[in-house]
């Protein structure tokens, strides 16, 4: 898809609607069973060791609570830099993900070793005026965030005002400057897989660097089939435009086993190119502990327990 074509399909709401509704529909049963089938793959021994380390390096360690304090953010950053002080060779995570007002504290704590992702644009609901959203974004970037996680306006999307959503993403992308933009769909609120596919293409047309399933505040959050649809979209986008867009499932991924299932899905859908923290991330808080427990289990030969990881 070249620039002229992108301009063409985004010329008006009806053109965009024609394009998005012209995308092939998602076979829901097929997507579910494909994801279920791939999740039965068994990854053992040294492959599992590699998968666990890769998954650790892909984690966006997240704290998005109203009760976050600077101390909690600093503690999380320390853990992000050195997830398991008892064992050498554990990679650091990809990024820390915080609210915009904590971005400065996080940046100070992680230096330039890790990315700092800040949620912006009236996260998690996205219910604010465009001006507020843009200012939210600029504030976070100014405070030191080099990745912005924005939420789309699900109300506008579900009402069919696609161009409005598109223009909002374009505007936020511009406000990001050099920071990477992740676009959160909140797939649990989009209702259908067809909508998930449309949202994926809409975000990529608008210049998203990453597409992300959920805020983690709504259930269901990330699921395997939804992530499969996102992965298919970035794969097809790459085939048509040659540019690489990342995928970030977030929320509800708590065990190492789940994480490895996602990695299998990535490898089978997009190939090994996407098996890097630059193109695939896990948005998670408790996942890291389980990854560390499994890593300890493989390193020591006996089962570990929650006494041997931090309480978050």
């Amino acid at each position, binding site marked *: 898809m070249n620039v002229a074509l992108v301009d063409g399909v985004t010329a008006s709401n009806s053109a965009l609607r024609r394009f998005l509704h012209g995308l092939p529909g998602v076979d829901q049963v097929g997507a579910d069973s494909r994801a279920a089938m791939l999740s039965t793959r068994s990854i053992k021994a040294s492959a599992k060791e590699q998968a666990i380390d890769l998954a650790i390096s892909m984690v966006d360690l997240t704290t998005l609570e109203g009760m976050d304090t600077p101390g909690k953010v600093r503690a999380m950053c320390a853990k992000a830099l050195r997830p398991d002080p008892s064992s050498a060779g554990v990679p650091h995570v990809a990024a820390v993900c915080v609210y915009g007002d904590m971005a400065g504290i996080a940046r100070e704590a992680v230096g330039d070793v890790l990315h700092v992702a800040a949620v912006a644009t009236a996260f998690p609901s996205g219910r604010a005026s465009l001006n507020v959203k843009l200012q939210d974004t600029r504030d976070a970037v100014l405070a030191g965030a080099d990745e912005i996680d924005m939420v789309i306006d699900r109300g506008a999307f579900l009402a069919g005002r696609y161009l409005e959503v598109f223009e909002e993403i374009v505007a936020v992308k511009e406000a990001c400057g050099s920071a990477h933009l992740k676009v959160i769909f909140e797939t649990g609120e989009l209702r259908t897989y067809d909508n998930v596919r449309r949202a994926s293409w809409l975000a990529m047309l608008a210049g998203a660097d990453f597409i992300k399933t959920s805020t983690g505040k709504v259930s269901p959050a990330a699921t395997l089939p939804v992530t499969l649809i996102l992965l298919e979209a970035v794969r097809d986008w790459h085939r048509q435009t040659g540019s690489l867009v990342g995928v970030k499932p977030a929320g509800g991924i708590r065990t190492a086993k789940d994480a490895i299932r996602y990695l299998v899905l990535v490898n089978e859908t997009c190939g090994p190119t996407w098996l890097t923290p630059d193109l695939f991330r896990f948005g998670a808080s408790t996942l890291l502990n389980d990854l560390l427990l499994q890593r300890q289990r493989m390193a020591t030969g*006996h*089962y*570990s*327990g929650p*006494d041997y990881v931090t309480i978050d």
Partner: protein
Amino acid sequence: MESRADIRKTYKLFIGGAFPRSESGRSYKVDDSKGAFLANAALASRKDARDAVLAARSAQPKWWDATAYNRGQILYRVAEMIEGRRGQFEDDVVSAEGVSRRKAASAVDAAIDRWVWYAGWADKIAQVLGSSNPVAGPYFNFSMPEPTGVVAAVAPQDSSLLGLVSVVAPIIVGGNTVIVVASQNRPLPAVTLAEVLATSDVPGGVVNILTGDYAEISPWLASHADVNALDLTGVGDAGLAKQLAVDAAVNVKRVLPPPRKAPDWFDDPGLDRIRAFVETTTVWHPIGV
């Protein structure tokens, strides 16, 4: 009347209040004392043990948070329900141990009495094992028994019901949760006990029952960093018992070694087993505050 089809059972494990098959999909034949086929039982794997530890760990804080009185009531209710299924337990003991029906009946009686006896201890442990200590200062000083946490136990191999009850009840009465590996060749009374526990008020995960080869499962429980104590009562092989005690050192577990000579489970049990799985916490409290 036409002859009915046999109902042949393949029993399952009891983990977290549910009855899962072994993760490994394996089962093994259980014969009666004369070698005739009785049923199939699940052959638990190390991953079943791991799941059981998770279930026991998540159940433990809530079980300890319940008032001692409430724990006693819940355990007493279990005794009531064993009484209600006394016939089935007698059948199980007869076929498992090859004893006469009268002997089996007295074992079931003793098991029920044992359970009631331990249930009664729930709200008395603190008075007997705790103390208020005189100290040289304006402080109250209390020592109180608290649960060790998650306990892994190997049940006696011979006494399939009374021995099992005598191992499980003292562990949980103190506020611990337990993963117990049932008698390897006589697991059916344990399976029936699981059915009793599942329909009683005992919260899921407080008692988890695994059937299978204890020599395969117990090393994983002994070295598990999230298990706090090990009860080796049913481990007959002295070499294995020693190795398990060594493995248990990884996180300094309490270890109750196998008895030196085969115990008579009908004897008065005393407080030893309760005491083995409680820790003493001592607190200082200023007087007048």
